[in-house]
Protein backbone atom coordinates (compact mmCIF):
# COMPACT_ATOMS: atom_id res chain seq x y z
CA UNK A 1 0.00 0.00 0.00
CA UNK A 2 2.76 2.39 0.99
CA UNK A 3 4.57 1.40 -2.15
CA UNK A 4 1.57 2.31 -4.26
CA UNK A 5 1.26 5.76 -2.71
CA UNK A 6 4.97 6.33 -3.21
CA UNK A 7 4.86 5.38 -6.87
CA UNK A 8 1.85 7.59 -7.56
CA UNK A 9 3.65 10.39 -5.77
CA UNK A 10 6.68 9.75 -7.97
CA UNK A 11 4.65 9.94 -11.16
CA UNK A 12 2.93 13.07 -9.88
CA UNK A 13 6.26 14.76 -9.28
CA UNK A 14 7.46 13.80 -12.76
CA UNK A 15 4.19 15.15 -14.13
CA UNK A 16 4.45 18.55 -12.49
CA UNK A 17 8.21 18.81 -12.85
CA UNK A 18 8.03 21.35 -15.69
CA UNK A 19 6.09 23.65 -13.35
CA UNK A 20 8.81 23.34 -10.72
CA UNK A 21 11.49 23.78 -13.35
CA UNK A 22 9.71 26.88 -14.60
CA UNK A 23 10.76 28.74 -11.48
CA UNK A 24 14.37 27.65 -11.62
CA UNK A 25 17.04 29.55 -13.46
CA UNK A 26 17.91 27.69 -16.63
CA UNK A 27 14.47 26.14 -16.94
CA UNK A 28 15.08 24.67 -20.32
CA UNK A 29 18.32 23.08 -19.27
CA UNK A 30 16.59 21.14 -16.53
CA UNK A 31 13.76 20.30 -18.89
CA UNK A 32 16.17 19.09 -21.53
CA UNK A 33 18.04 16.96 -19.01
CA UNK A 34 14.77 15.51 -17.74
CA UNK A 35 13.74 14.76 -21.30
CA UNK A 36 16.98 12.82 -21.72
CA UNK A 37 16.44 11.06 -18.42
CA UNK A 38 12.89 10.07 -19.34
CA UNK A 39 14.03 8.80 -22.73
CA UNK A 40 16.70 6.65 -21.13
CA UNK A 41 14.24 5.45 -18.51
CA UNK A 42 11.93 4.24 -21.24
CA UNK A 43 14.76 2.51 -23.09
CA UNK A 44 15.93 0.86 -19.88
CA UNK A 45 12.40 -0.35 -19.17
CA UNK A 46 12.04 -1.76 -22.64
CA UNK A 47 15.31 -3.64 -22.22
CA UNK A 48 14.28 -4.91 -18.80
CA UNK A 49 10.93 -6.17 -20.06
CA UNK A 50 12.68 -8.28 -22.67
CA UNK A 51 15.34 -9.56 -20.29
CA UNK A 52 12.53 -10.82 -18.05
CA UNK A 53 12.10 -13.55 -20.66
CA UNK A 54 15.80 -14.34 -20.30
CA UNK A 55 16.92 -12.67 -23.51
CA UNK A 56 19.60 -10.02 -23.12
CA UNK A 57 19.42 -8.07 -26.35
CA UNK A 58 21.80 -5.68 -28.09
CA UNK A 59 19.20 -4.77 -30.66
CA UNK A 60 18.22 -1.51 -28.95
CA UNK A 61 20.66 0.66 -30.93
CA UNK A 62 19.46 -1.05 -34.09
CA UNK A 63 15.79 -0.33 -33.51
CA UNK A 64 16.49 3.11 -32.06
CA UNK A 65 18.37 4.01 -35.23
CA UNK A 66 15.80 2.32 -37.45
CA UNK A 67 13.00 4.34 -35.88
CA UNK A 68 15.01 7.54 -36.11
CA UNK A 69 15.87 6.99 -39.76
CA UNK A 70 12.49 5.81 -40.98
CA UNK A 71 10.88 8.82 -39.30
CA UNK A 72 13.45 11.19 -40.73
CA UNK A 73 13.23 9.82 -44.26
CA UNK A 74 9.45 9.86 -44.35
CA UNK A 75 9.28 13.41 -43.04
CA UNK A 76 12.16 14.89 -44.96
CA UNK A 77 12.17 13.05 -48.27
CA UNK A 78 8.51 12.16 -48.64
CA UNK A 79 7.05 15.10 -46.77
CA UNK A 80 4.87 13.10 -44.39
CA UNK A 81 3.54 14.77 -41.25
CA UNK A 82 5.51 13.87 -38.12
CA UNK A 83 2.78 11.76 -36.59
CA UNK A 84 2.44 9.58 -39.70
CA UNK A 85 6.18 9.16 -39.95
CA UNK A 86 6.23 7.96 -36.37
CA UNK A 87 3.46 5.47 -37.02
CA UNK A 88 5.20 4.16 -40.12
CA UNK A 89 8.46 3.87 -38.19
CA UNK A 90 6.66 1.82 -35.55
CA UNK A 91 5.06 -0.41 -38.19
CA UNK A 92 8.32 -1.07 -39.97
CA UNK A 93 10.19 -1.73 -36.74
CA UNK A 94 7.52 -4.14 -35.57
CA UNK A 95 7.74 -6.11 -38.82
CA UNK A 96 11.53 -6.18 -38.67
CA UNK A 97 11.43 -7.15 -34.99
CA UNK A 98 8.94 -9.90 -35.69
CA UNK A 99 11.15 -11.41 -38.39
CA UNK A 100 14.35 -10.97 -36.40
CA UNK A 101 12.67 -12.37 -33.31
CA UNK A 102 11.54 -15.53 -35.04
CA UNK A 103 15.03 -16.02 -36.41
CA UNK A 104 17.09 -15.23 -33.34
CA UNK A 105 15.03 -15.84 -30.23
CA UNK A 106 15.81 -19.52 -30.07
CA UNK A 107 19.42 -18.52 -29.43
CA UNK A 108 20.36 -18.16 -25.79
CA UNK A 109 22.63 -15.98 -23.72
CA UNK A 110 25.69 -14.69 -25.53
CA UNK A 111 24.61 -16.16 -28.83
CA UNK A 112 21.44 -14.10 -28.82
CA UNK A 113 23.33 -11.02 -27.64
CA UNK A 114 25.86 -11.30 -30.48
CA UNK A 115 23.16 -12.00 -33.06
CA UNK A 116 21.28 -8.85 -32.06
CA UNK A 117 24.50 -6.87 -31.90
CA UNK A 118 25.22 -8.04 -35.45
CA UNK A 119 21.74 -6.84 -36.44
CA UNK A 120 22.44 -3.36 -35.07
CA UNK A 121 25.79 -3.12 -36.83
CA UNK A 122 24.42 -4.44 -40.13
CA UNK A 123 21.64 -1.81 -40.05
CA UNK A 124 24.21 0.90 -39.36
CA UNK A 125 26.30 -0.21 -42.33
CA UNK A 126 23.19 -0.18 -44.51
CA UNK A 127 22.31 3.34 -43.45
CA UNK A 128 25.86 4.57 -44.06
CA UNK A 129 26.13 2.90 -47.44
CA UNK A 130 22.69 3.50 -48.93
CA UNK A 131 23.46 7.17 -49.42
CA UNK A 132 20.72 7.80 -51.96
CA UNK A 133 18.05 7.09 -49.38
CA UNK A 134 19.73 7.96 -46.10
CA UNK A 135 22.28 10.64 -47.03
CA UNK A 136 24.89 8.35 -45.45
CA UNK A 137 27.13 9.58 -42.68
CA UNK A 138 26.33 13.21 -43.28
CA UNK A 139 22.99 12.68 -41.59
CA UNK A 140 19.54 14.02 -42.30
CA UNK A 141 18.16 17.36 -41.19
CA UNK A 142 14.44 17.35 -40.57
CA UNK A 143 12.04 19.47 -38.59
CA UNK A 144 11.63 19.59 -34.84
CA UNK A 145 8.36 18.70 -33.22
CA UNK A 146 6.15 21.29 -31.54
CA UNK A 147 8.49 23.85 -33.09
CA UNK A 148 11.04 22.92 -30.44
CA UNK A 149 8.71 23.68 -27.52
CA UNK A 150 10.40 21.82 -24.68
CA UNK A 151 7.27 21.69 -22.53
CA UNK A 152 5.30 19.93 -25.23
CA UNK A 153 8.16 17.55 -25.92
CA UNK A 154 8.47 16.85 -22.23
CA UNK A 155 4.82 15.98 -21.92
CA UNK A 156 4.81 13.81 -25.01
CA UNK A 157 7.67 11.80 -23.54
CA UNK A 158 6.02 11.84 -20.13
CA UNK A 159 2.90 10.27 -21.63
CA UNK A 160 5.03 7.65 -23.32
CA UNK A 161 6.78 7.06 -20.03
CA UNK A 162 3.48 6.48 -18.23
CA UNK A 163 2.29 4.12 -20.97
CA UNK A 164 5.51 2.12 -20.82
CA UNK A 165 5.29 1.94 -17.04
CA UNK A 166 1.75 0.72 -17.55
CA UNK A 167 2.91 -2.02 -19.91
CA UNK A 168 5.71 -3.00 -17.56
CA UNK A 169 3.43 -3.11 -14.52
CA UNK A 170 0.81 -5.05 -16.47
CA UNK A 171 3.43 -7.66 -17.24
CA UNK A 172 4.47 -7.75 -13.59
CA UNK A 173 0.94 -8.33 -12.36
CA UNK A 174 -0.55 -10.50 -15.04
CA UNK A 175 0.02 -14.07 -16.07
CA UNK A 176 2.92 -12.83 -18.17
CA UNK A 177 4.99 -12.48 -15.03
CA UNK A 178 4.58 -16.22 -14.53
CA UNK A 179 5.32 -17.18 -18.09
CA UNK A 180 8.30 -14.82 -18.46
CA UNK A 181 9.83 -15.93 -15.18
CA UNK A 182 9.26 -19.56 -16.14
CA UNK A 183 10.83 -19.09 -19.57
CA UNK A 184 13.77 -17.26 -18.05
CA UNK A 185 14.54 -19.83 -15.39
CA UNK A 186 13.87 -22.98 -17.38
CA UNK A 187 12.59 -22.76 -20.89
CA UNK A 188 12.24 -26.50 -21.37
CA UNK A 189 10.08 -26.92 -18.32
CA UNK A 190 8.10 -23.84 -19.31
CA UNK A 191 7.25 -25.47 -22.63
CA UNK A 192 6.08 -28.65 -20.98
CA UNK A 193 3.95 -26.55 -18.65
CA UNK A 194 2.00 -25.38 -21.67
CA UNK A 195 3.71 -22.05 -22.28
CA UNK A 196 4.18 -21.14 -25.92
CA UNK A 197 7.65 -19.81 -25.26
CA UNK A 198 8.49 -18.76 -28.81
CA UNK A 199 5.36 -16.68 -29.21
CA UNK A 200 5.73 -15.04 -25.82
CA UNK A 201 9.32 -14.10 -26.51
CA UNK A 202 8.58 -12.82 -29.99
CA UNK A 203 5.70 -10.68 -28.77
CA UNK A 204 7.86 -9.18 -26.03
CA UNK A 205 10.71 -8.64 -28.46
CA UNK A 206 8.40 -6.78 -30.83
CA UNK A 207 7.02 -4.58 -28.04
CA UNK A 208 10.50 -3.84 -26.75
CA UNK A 209 11.74 -3.04 -30.26
CA UNK A 210 8.78 -0.73 -30.91
CA UNK A 211 9.47 1.20 -27.73
CA UNK A 212 13.16 1.62 -28.64
CA UNK A 213 12.18 2.68 -32.11
CA UNK A 214 9.61 5.17 -30.80
CA UNK A 215 12.29 6.81 -28.68
CA UNK A 216 14.46 6.88 -31.79
CA UNK A 217 11.78 8.80 -33.67
CA UNK A 218 11.63 11.27 -30.78
CA UNK A 219 15.36 11.83 -31.09
CA UNK A 220 14.86 12.71 -34.75
CA UNK A 221 12.28 15.34 -33.96
CA UNK A 222 13.94 16.74 -30.86
CA UNK A 223 17.24 17.58 -32.51
CA UNK A 224 15.83 17.94 -36.01
CA UNK A 225 18.99 16.23 -37.16
CA UNK A 226 20.31 12.68 -36.98
CA UNK A 227 23.46 10.95 -38.10
CA UNK A 228 24.15 7.22 -38.15
CA UNK A 229 27.05 7.27 -35.71
CA UNK A 230 24.98 8.84 -32.97
CA UNK A 231 21.66 7.01 -33.41
CA UNK A 232 23.15 3.56 -33.98
CA UNK A 233 25.56 4.18 -31.13
CA UNK A 234 26.13 0.90 -29.31
CA UNK A 235 26.50 2.79 -26.07
CA UNK A 236 22.73 3.40 -26.16
CA UNK A 237 22.30 -0.35 -25.74
CA UNK A 238 25.05 -0.69 -23.16
CA UNK A 239 23.63 2.25 -21.19
CA UNK A 240 20.19 0.64 -21.12
CA UNK A 241 21.77 -2.51 -19.74
CA UNK A 242 23.85 -0.53 -17.25
CA UNK A 243 20.84 1.39 -15.98
CA UNK A 244 18.79 -1.76 -15.50
CA UNK A 245 21.49 -3.63 -13.60
CA UNK A 246 22.44 -0.49 -11.68
CA UNK A 247 18.88 0.06 -10.52
CA UNK A 248 17.67 -3.49 -10.15
CA UNK A 249 16.74 -6.03 -12.78
CA UNK A 250 13.33 -7.64 -13.44
CA UNK A 251 11.23 -4.84 -12.02
CA UNK A 252 9.58 -1.62 -13.08
CA UNK A 253 11.10 0.63 -10.48
CA UNK A 254 14.66 -0.71 -10.84
CA UNK A 255 15.33 0.51 -14.38
CA UNK A 256 13.71 3.85 -13.55
CA UNK A 257 15.87 4.35 -10.47
CA UNK A 258 18.94 3.24 -12.40
CA UNK A 259 18.32 5.54 -15.34
CA UNK A 260 17.54 8.55 -13.15
CA UNK A 261 20.57 8.11 -10.90
CA UNK A 262 23.07 7.29 -13.64
CA UNK A 263 21.92 10.09 -15.90
CA UNK A 264 21.99 12.65 -13.10
CA UNK A 265 25.43 11.46 -11.98
CA UNK A 266 26.61 11.76 -15.58
CA UNK A 267 25.27 15.29 -15.90
CA UNK A 268 26.61 16.48 -12.56
CA UNK A 269 30.03 14.95 -13.03
CA UNK A 270 30.42 16.31 -16.54
CA UNK A 271 29.55 19.86 -15.52
CA UNK A 272 31.55 19.87 -12.28
CA UNK A 273 34.62 17.77 -13.00
CA UNK A 274 34.78 18.28 -16.75
CA UNK A 275 37.74 16.58 -18.32
CA UNK A 276 38.16 13.02 -17.05
CA UNK A 277 34.77 12.82 -15.34
CA UNK A 278 34.05 9.50 -17.00
CA UNK A 279 36.66 7.86 -14.77
CA UNK A 280 34.57 8.69 -11.72
CA UNK A 281 31.47 7.52 -13.57
CA UNK A 282 33.12 4.18 -14.30
CA UNK A 283 34.23 3.86 -10.69
CA UNK A 284 30.69 4.44 -9.45
CA UNK A 285 29.42 1.67 -11.73
CA UNK A 286 32.14 -0.76 -10.63
CA UNK A 287 31.67 -0.05 -6.92
CA UNK A 288 27.91 -0.35 -7.16
CA UNK A 289 27.97 -3.68 -8.92
CA UNK A 290 30.53 -5.04 -6.45
CA UNK A 291 28.76 -3.95 -3.31
CA UNK A 292 25.18 -4.01 -4.53
CA UNK A 293 24.98 -6.91 -6.96
CA UNK A 294 21.21 -6.55 -6.99
CA UNK A 295 21.47 -2.92 -7.90
CA UNK A 296 20.50 0.14 -5.91
CA UNK A 297 17.13 -1.42 -5.12
CA UNK A 298 18.99 -4.23 -3.42
CA UNK A 299 19.49 -1.89 -0.45
CA UNK A 300 15.84 -2.15 0.41
CA UNK A 301 15.44 -5.80 -0.36
CA UNK A 302 15.79 -8.48 2.24
CA UNK A 303 18.76 -10.72 1.78
Amino acid at each position, binding site marked *: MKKKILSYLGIFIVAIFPLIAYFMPGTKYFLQVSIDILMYTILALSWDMLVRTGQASFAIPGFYGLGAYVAAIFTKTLGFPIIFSIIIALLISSIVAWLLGYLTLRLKGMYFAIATLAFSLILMTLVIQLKDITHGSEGISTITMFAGNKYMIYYLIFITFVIVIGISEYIQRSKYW*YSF*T*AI*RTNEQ*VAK*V*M*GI*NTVRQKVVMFVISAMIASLIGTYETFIAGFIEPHSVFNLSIGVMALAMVIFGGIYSTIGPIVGAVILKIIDEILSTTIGLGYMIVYGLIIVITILYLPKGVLGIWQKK
Partner: protein
Amino acid sequence: MAEKIILETRGITKYFGGLRAVYNISLKLNEKNILAIIGPNGAGKTTTFNLISGVFPVSSGNIIFEGKDITKTNPAERCHLGIGRTFQIMQPFEDMSVLENITTGALFGRHKYSLKEAKQKSLEIAKRFGLFEYKDFVGSKLPLAYRKKLEIARAYATSPKVMLLDEVMEGLNPAEAREMIETIFSLRDEGISIIMIDHIMFTIKELADWVIVMNYGEKLTEGKYDDVVKSKEVIEAYLGKEETC
Protein backbone atom coordinates in the same frame (compact mmCIF):
# COMPACT_ATOMS: atom_id res chain seq x y z
CA MET B 1 -9.11 -55.97 -21.92
CA ALA B 2 -11.66 -53.66 -23.40
CA GLU B 3 -10.30 -50.58 -21.75
CA LYS B 4 -9.96 -47.35 -23.71
CA ILE B 5 -6.47 -46.50 -24.93
CA ILE B 6 -5.63 -42.90 -24.14
CA LEU B 7 -2.01 -42.69 -25.30
CA GLU B 8 -0.16 -44.81 -27.78
CA THR B 9 3.25 -44.66 -29.39
CA ARG B 10 3.92 -46.49 -32.60
CA GLY B 11 7.53 -47.37 -33.17
CA ILE B 12 8.97 -44.04 -32.04
CA THR B 13 12.67 -43.70 -32.68
CA LYS B 14 15.18 -40.99 -31.82
CA TYR B 15 18.65 -40.42 -33.15
CA PHE B 16 21.04 -37.81 -31.77
CA GLY B 17 23.47 -37.28 -34.59
CA GLY B 18 24.50 -40.85 -35.32
CA LEU B 19 23.62 -42.08 -31.86
CA ARG B 20 20.50 -44.17 -31.46
CA ALA B 21 18.89 -43.20 -28.19
CA VAL B 22 15.47 -44.76 -28.61
CA TYR B 23 14.51 -47.33 -31.19
CA ASN B 24 11.10 -48.49 -32.25
CA ILE B 25 9.25 -48.09 -28.98
CA SER B 26 5.57 -48.92 -29.11
CA LEU B 27 3.46 -48.67 -26.02
CA LYS B 28 -0.17 -48.36 -25.13
CA LEU B 29 -1.51 -46.63 -22.08
CA ASN B 30 -5.02 -47.46 -21.02
CA GLU B 31 -7.21 -44.89 -19.37
CA LYS B 32 -6.83 -44.78 -15.59
CA ASN B 33 -3.96 -47.20 -15.70
CA ILE B 34 -0.46 -46.97 -14.37
CA LEU B 35 2.24 -47.99 -16.80
CA ALA B 36 5.81 -48.36 -15.55
CA ILE B 37 8.92 -48.18 -17.69
CA ILE B 38 11.95 -49.79 -16.15
CA GLY B 39 15.41 -50.47 -17.36
CA PRO B 40 19.05 -49.84 -16.54
CA ASN B 41 20.56 -46.36 -16.66
CA GLY B 42 20.94 -45.09 -20.18
CA ALA B 43 18.25 -47.38 -21.47
CA GLY B 44 16.43 -44.45 -23.05
CA LYS B 45 13.58 -44.12 -20.57
CA THR B 46 13.84 -40.40 -20.03
CA THR B 47 14.36 -39.86 -23.75
CA THR B 48 11.12 -41.70 -24.33
CA PHE B 49 9.44 -39.29 -21.93
CA ASN B 50 10.97 -36.37 -23.79
CA LEU B 51 9.58 -37.73 -27.03
CA ILE B 52 6.10 -38.21 -25.60
CA SER B 53 6.03 -34.78 -23.99
CA GLY B 54 7.46 -33.18 -27.12
CA VAL B 55 10.72 -31.87 -25.67
CA PHE B 56 12.46 -33.61 -28.59
CA PRO B 57 10.84 -34.26 -31.95
CA VAL B 58 10.82 -37.94 -32.93
CA SER B 59 13.07 -39.11 -35.74
CA SER B 60 10.36 -41.53 -36.85
CA GLY B 61 7.23 -43.15 -35.50
CA ASN B 62 3.92 -41.74 -34.33
CA ILE B 63 2.36 -40.67 -31.09
CA ILE B 64 -1.40 -40.98 -30.74
CA PHE B 65 -3.28 -39.24 -27.97
CA GLU B 66 -7.01 -39.83 -27.55
CA GLY B 67 -7.15 -41.15 -31.09
CA LYS B 68 -5.43 -38.13 -32.62
CA ASP B 69 -1.95 -38.11 -34.08
CA ILE B 70 0.04 -35.55 -32.08
CA THR B 71 3.48 -36.38 -33.47
CA LYS B 72 3.96 -32.97 -35.02
CA THR B 73 2.73 -30.84 -32.11
CA ASN B 74 4.99 -28.87 -29.79
CA PRO B 75 5.30 -29.44 -26.04
CA ALA B 76 2.98 -26.59 -25.15
CA GLU B 77 0.24 -27.96 -27.39
CA ARG B 78 0.66 -31.42 -25.87
CA CYS B 79 0.30 -29.88 -22.45
CA HIS B 80 -2.89 -28.18 -23.56
CA LEU B 81 -4.20 -31.53 -24.81
CA GLY B 82 -3.55 -33.01 -21.40
CA ILE B 83 -0.09 -34.49 -21.16
CA GLY B 84 1.73 -33.40 -18.01
CA ARG B 85 5.15 -34.46 -16.90
CA THR B 86 7.67 -34.17 -14.11
CA PHE B 87 11.42 -34.10 -14.47
CA GLN B 88 13.86 -36.52 -12.94
CA ILE B 89 16.25 -33.74 -11.97
CA MET B 90 13.87 -31.47 -10.17
CA GLN B 91 13.63 -28.13 -11.89
CA PRO B 92 11.48 -25.70 -9.97
CA PHE B 93 11.42 -22.17 -11.40
CA GLU B 94 14.02 -20.67 -9.15
CA ASP B 95 12.80 -17.10 -9.03
CA MET B 96 9.36 -18.23 -7.94
CA SER B 97 7.81 -19.38 -4.71
CA VAL B 98 6.22 -22.83 -4.42
CA LEU B 99 2.80 -21.34 -4.88
CA GLU B 100 3.83 -19.35 -7.92
CA ASN B 101 5.33 -22.47 -9.46
CA ILE B 102 2.01 -24.22 -9.14
CA THR B 103 0.11 -21.16 -10.36
CA THR B 104 2.17 -21.18 -13.54
CA GLY B 105 0.94 -24.70 -14.28
CA ALA B 106 -2.65 -23.71 -13.71
CA LEU B 107 -2.36 -20.58 -15.85
CA PHE B 108 -0.97 -22.19 -18.95
CA GLY B 109 -2.19 -25.79 -18.63
CA ARG B 110 -5.15 -27.46 -20.23
CA HIS B 111 -7.78 -25.19 -18.73
CA LYS B 112 -5.85 -21.93 -19.02
CA TYR B 113 -7.33 -20.52 -15.85
CA SER B 114 -7.46 -16.79 -15.33
CA LEU B 115 -4.93 -15.41 -12.88
CA LYS B 116 -7.48 -15.20 -10.10
CA GLU B 117 -8.73 -18.73 -10.65
CA ALA B 118 -5.21 -20.03 -11.00
CA LYS B 119 -4.15 -18.52 -7.69
CA GLN B 120 -7.19 -20.08 -6.05
CA LYS B 121 -6.49 -23.40 -7.71
CA SER B 122 -2.85 -23.40 -6.71
CA LEU B 123 -3.74 -22.95 -3.05
CA GLU B 124 -5.99 -25.98 -3.26
CA ILE B 125 -3.31 -27.96 -5.02
CA ALA B 126 -0.65 -26.92 -2.52
CA LYS B 127 -2.90 -28.19 0.26
CA ARG B 128 -3.70 -31.39 -1.58
CA PHE B 129 -0.02 -32.27 -1.99
CA GLY B 130 0.98 -31.19 1.49
CA LEU B 131 2.93 -28.15 0.34
CA PHE B 132 0.80 -25.52 2.00
CA GLU B 133 3.16 -24.75 4.86
CA TYR B 134 5.98 -24.25 2.33
CA LYS B 135 3.96 -22.19 -0.09
CA ASP B 136 6.13 -19.09 0.12
CA PHE B 137 9.44 -20.93 -0.05
CA VAL B 138 11.62 -20.39 -3.07
CA GLY B 139 11.50 -23.65 -5.01
CA SER B 140 15.18 -24.45 -4.90
CA LYS B 141 15.36 -24.20 -1.10
CA LEU B 142 12.83 -26.94 -0.42
CA PRO B 143 13.81 -30.28 1.11
CA LEU B 144 14.07 -33.07 -1.45
CA ALA B 145 10.80 -34.83 -0.70
CA TYR B 146 8.93 -31.57 -1.03
CA ARG B 147 10.63 -30.74 -4.28
CA LYS B 148 9.39 -34.07 -5.63
CA LYS B 149 5.95 -33.12 -4.44
CA LEU B 150 6.27 -29.73 -6.07
CA GLU B 151 7.19 -31.37 -9.37
CA ILE B 152 4.01 -33.43 -9.21
CA ALA B 153 1.86 -30.57 -7.96
CA ARG B 154 3.05 -28.29 -10.74
CA ALA B 155 2.39 -30.91 -13.40
CA TYR B 156 -0.97 -31.66 -11.80
CA ALA B 157 -1.86 -27.98 -11.97
CA THR B 158 -1.86 -28.16 -15.77
CA SER B 159 -4.91 -30.46 -15.43
CA PRO B 160 -3.40 -33.39 -17.30
CA LYS B 161 -5.19 -36.49 -18.47
CA VAL B 162 -1.90 -38.32 -18.66
CA MET B 163 1.00 -37.72 -16.31
CA LEU B 164 4.54 -38.77 -17.01
CA LEU B 165 6.36 -39.23 -13.70
CA ASP B 166 10.13 -39.45 -14.01
CA GLU B 167 11.66 -41.20 -10.96
CA VAL B 168 9.53 -39.51 -8.36
CA MET B 169 10.50 -42.14 -5.77
CA GLU B 170 14.23 -41.71 -6.04
CA GLY B 171 15.93 -40.64 -2.84
CA LEU B 172 12.83 -40.80 -0.66
CA ASN B 173 12.88 -42.56 2.71
CA PRO B 174 10.37 -45.39 3.26
CA ALA B 175 7.80 -43.19 4.95
CA GLU B 176 7.99 -40.58 2.22
CA ALA B 177 7.86 -43.29 -0.43
CA ARG B 178 4.73 -44.68 1.10
CA GLU B 179 3.17 -41.25 1.00
CA MET B 180 4.16 -40.88 -2.63
CA ILE B 181 2.59 -44.19 -3.52
CA GLU B 182 -0.65 -43.06 -1.95
CA THR B 183 -0.43 -39.83 -3.89
CA ILE B 184 -0.01 -41.67 -7.17
CA PHE B 185 -2.93 -43.91 -6.43
CA SER B 186 -5.05 -40.89 -5.61
CA LEU B 187 -4.13 -39.35 -8.96
CA ARG B 188 -5.14 -42.53 -10.71
CA ASP B 189 -8.38 -42.63 -8.79
CA GLU B 190 -9.11 -39.13 -9.99
CA GLY B 191 -9.01 -40.46 -13.51
CA ILE B 192 -5.49 -39.57 -14.54
CA SER B 193 -3.54 -42.14 -16.49
CA ILE B 194 0.08 -42.43 -15.50
CA ILE B 195 3.35 -43.50 -17.04
CA MET B 196 6.16 -43.72 -14.54
CA ILE B 197 9.85 -44.40 -14.73
CA ASP B 198 11.29 -46.02 -11.68
CA HIS B 199 14.00 -48.23 -10.30
CA ILE B 200 12.46 -49.22 -7.04
CA MET B 201 10.89 -52.58 -7.59
CA PHE B 202 8.52 -52.79 -4.68
CA THR B 203 6.75 -49.60 -5.65
CA ILE B 204 6.38 -50.79 -9.21
CA LYS B 205 5.06 -54.08 -8.01
CA GLU B 206 2.49 -52.25 -5.99
CA LEU B 207 1.58 -49.53 -8.47
CA ALA B 208 1.99 -50.71 -12.02
CA ASP B 209 -0.78 -52.28 -14.04
CA TRP B 210 1.61 -52.93 -16.86
CA VAL B 211 5.40 -52.86 -17.10
CA ILE B 212 7.66 -52.15 -20.04
CA VAL B 213 11.33 -53.05 -19.82
CA MET B 214 13.81 -51.10 -21.90
CA ASN B 215 17.47 -51.71 -22.63
CA TYR B 216 19.81 -50.00 -25.06
CA GLY B 217 16.96 -47.82 -26.31
CA GLU B 218 14.80 -50.79 -27.27
CA LYS B 219 11.84 -52.47 -25.71
CA LEU B 220 13.01 -55.72 -24.17
CA THR B 221 9.72 -57.07 -23.05
CA GLU B 222 6.42 -56.03 -21.49
CA GLY B 223 3.73 -57.52 -19.38
CA LYS B 224 2.40 -57.70 -15.89
CA TYR B 225 4.99 -57.14 -13.19
CA ASP B 226 5.02 -60.72 -12.01
CA ASP B 227 5.48 -62.03 -15.53
CA VAL B 228 8.11 -59.51 -16.48
CA VAL B 229 10.37 -60.09 -13.53
CA LYS B 230 10.39 -63.76 -14.24
CA SER B 231 11.47 -63.23 -17.83
CA LYS B 232 14.98 -64.48 -18.42
CA GLU B 233 16.15 -61.56 -20.53
CA VAL B 234 15.06 -59.09 -17.93
CA ILE B 235 16.86 -60.85 -15.15
CA GLU B 236 19.97 -60.87 -17.26
CA ALA B 237 19.84 -57.40 -18.63
CA TYR B 238 18.40 -55.49 -15.81
CA LEU B 239 17.74 -57.13 -12.53
CA GLY B 240 20.97 -59.05 -12.64
CA LYS B 241 22.94 -55.89 -12.85
CA GLU B 242 20.94 -53.40 -10.91
CA GLU B 243 20.05 -55.50 -7.91
CA THR B 244 23.55 -56.69 -7.27
CA CYS B 245 25.18 -53.35 -7.15
